[in-house]
């Protein structure tokens, strides 16, 4: 509770974090309730294609004459769903591997860390593209798994070195001498200290997943299904949006959605950073 109050205070004093937090809330709202706000008109109306913004279609229409705004709103869920799933996977694997490796130490630690080195060296995006080209699935869980395939390694390494340095800290030693159970060690002594990394990396992982996921849809590597921002841009590009200014809204509206979301994540992660790292609050 105190943490939430602190977060509110930080956001209030730093308006850009407040902006980020509010925008994130709007996106989350759209992702959950989007389908009850917006309806996708299935009727095609070529006469109304590429209309500029006006009554009944605030952001204009696409090449089938369907309004763009509802598509934008409905496109929120598929992206957010997969990205958040991927963030959870990245954080879970990263924390478990990092803590276990740091806690075990010795040869296990050595082997795990060399494996992490290997994963860190493989360029993530080409691997993601190659896997999704072979697997070719539209299932959100499968997509999230593919997107997380390399992302956990950086976090695992950071958590592990944090766990290593924690292992020698006085209060952890005191807890160990008292013979506190492992459950207490992890939840009360270790986790609060890796919490900041975890929270911020959760946001970063979601951000990275959005980037890669939209990219997959853009390139048409992930199967095109339903409405989402990546497919919208892909369709706009293939309908020659670059060569005519009439479809400019269809091309740039989803791009604006993506950029705004990324900015919100960056600004909000800064607030989290301050929350967990009191030294930054002074500066």
């Amino acid at each position: 509770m105190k943490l939430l109050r602190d977060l509110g205070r930080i956001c209030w004093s730093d308006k850009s974090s407040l902006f980020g937090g509010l925008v994130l809330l709007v996106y989350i709202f759209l992702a959950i309730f989007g389908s009850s706000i917006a309806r996708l008109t299935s009727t095609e109306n070529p006469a109304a294609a590429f209309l500029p913004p006006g009554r009944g279609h605030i952001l204009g229409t696409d090449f089938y004459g369907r309004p763009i705004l509802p598509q934008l709103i409905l496109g929120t869920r598929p992206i957010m769903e997969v990205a958040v799933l991927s963030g959870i996977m990245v954080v879970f694997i990263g924390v478990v591997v990092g803590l276990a490796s740091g806690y075990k130490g010795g040869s296990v630690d050595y082997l795990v860390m060399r494996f992490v080195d290997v994963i860190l060296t493989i360029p993530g995006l080409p691997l993601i593209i190659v896997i999704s080209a072979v697997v070719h699935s539209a299932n959100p869980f499968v997509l999230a798994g593919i997107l997380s395939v390399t992302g956990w390694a950086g976090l695992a390494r950071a958590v592990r070195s944090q766990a290593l340095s924690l292992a020698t800290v006085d209060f952890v030693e005191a807890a160990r001498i008292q013979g506190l159970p492992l459950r207490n060690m992890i939840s009360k002594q270790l986790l609060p200290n890796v919490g900041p990394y975890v929270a911020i990396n959760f946001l970063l992982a979601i951000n990275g997943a959005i980037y890669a996921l939209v990219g997959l849809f853009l390139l048409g590597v992930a199967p095109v299904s339903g409405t989402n921002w990546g497919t919208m841009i892909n369709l706009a590009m293939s309908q020659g949006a670059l060569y005519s200014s009439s479809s400019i809204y269809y091309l740039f509206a989803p791009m604006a959605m993506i950029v705004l979301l990324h900015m919100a994540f960056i600004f909000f992660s800064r607030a989290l950073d301050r929350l967990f790292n009191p030294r930054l609050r002074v500066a």
Partner: protein
Amino acid sequence: MISYLARRLLVALLTIFVVVTISFFMVRLMPGNAESYLENQLIQQGGLSSAQIQERVNALLGIEPKAPLWKQYFQYLRDIVHGNLGHSMINPSTSVLHVVGNALPWTLFSVGVALLISFGLGVVGGTIMAAFADSFVGRFLTLVVSFLTAIPNYLIAIVLLYLIADRYHLLPSQGAYSVDTSPGFNLPFVGSVLSHSVLPIASYVITAWGGWALSMKGCVVNTLGADYVRAAESWGLRRRRVTQSYLGRNSMLPMVTSLALSLGFMVGGSVFIETYFSYPGMGFYLIQAVNSRDYSTMMGCFLVITVSVVVANLAVDLFYPLVDPRIVSPIGRKQSETDIDVGSGVVVGPGPVSATSGAAR
């Protein structure tokens, strides 16, 4: 020194081995795999008996159906070691190595130049941001940089295409050089190559330099409060000497570490940028192969992309002891190692923390 080098070399070789293994099992064992796809394609073309189809598929994929899996695996390893990446499935007459050999220089050129430019710009920008943190310039730069890091590189590429290439026809947007020029070391060709590379390189730089600037700012701010900097100032050393030798060199350290990591990320971005600008590099052929389901070319491109990133990483690792002698000396090793560990991959530490790092790095 020796053990440091040995460890780096081990990781590099291990990475290549892992990637080769992944690519072997992926094409053979994954659901919806290449084999069945190829079979269906040949069946649709018609005119071949099923035995012939099987034979053709096996020949294309390099599969010997009777041999056990481990034997095929070793055969595959041997082929890779000899540089035999197989043949394209779409045009069986061209070898994958040929495709890759033509594509690799373009990617190395554009990504390399872009990396150097964005690194340089980032170091300068970050230092300015740290030095004038409270002034208007500093705030404005920070705002611009935050905005730029929020834009994925493919969106920058689309915007550049839209504005500069199609609206105003200022620069060429397709291919690596004009077909009117003859490849070779002559002025028209070199000029054409340069003008064709401007937009792709700009797309990399615009998105990447902000990340560098932010992490450089963080590094400088961190070093600013260090005891040895304060000591140097109190000795009355000249401002310039403090900035260059005490601040600059020490702030650069974590930046060099993240150079290696960001290389992989930039090469990943080449997939989008080369596709949009039809720039005939590795990323362009990778996506082409994905879209035409040419699995052998796809895996070949992926392998070579990975190997070049690994080699570049190794080069940075070998170069690193020159910048930071602590890393190879046994006494300082422990300390500097944990420093680097904490630094990479965490938002508060140094490293190119752009909107797009994380999963896709």
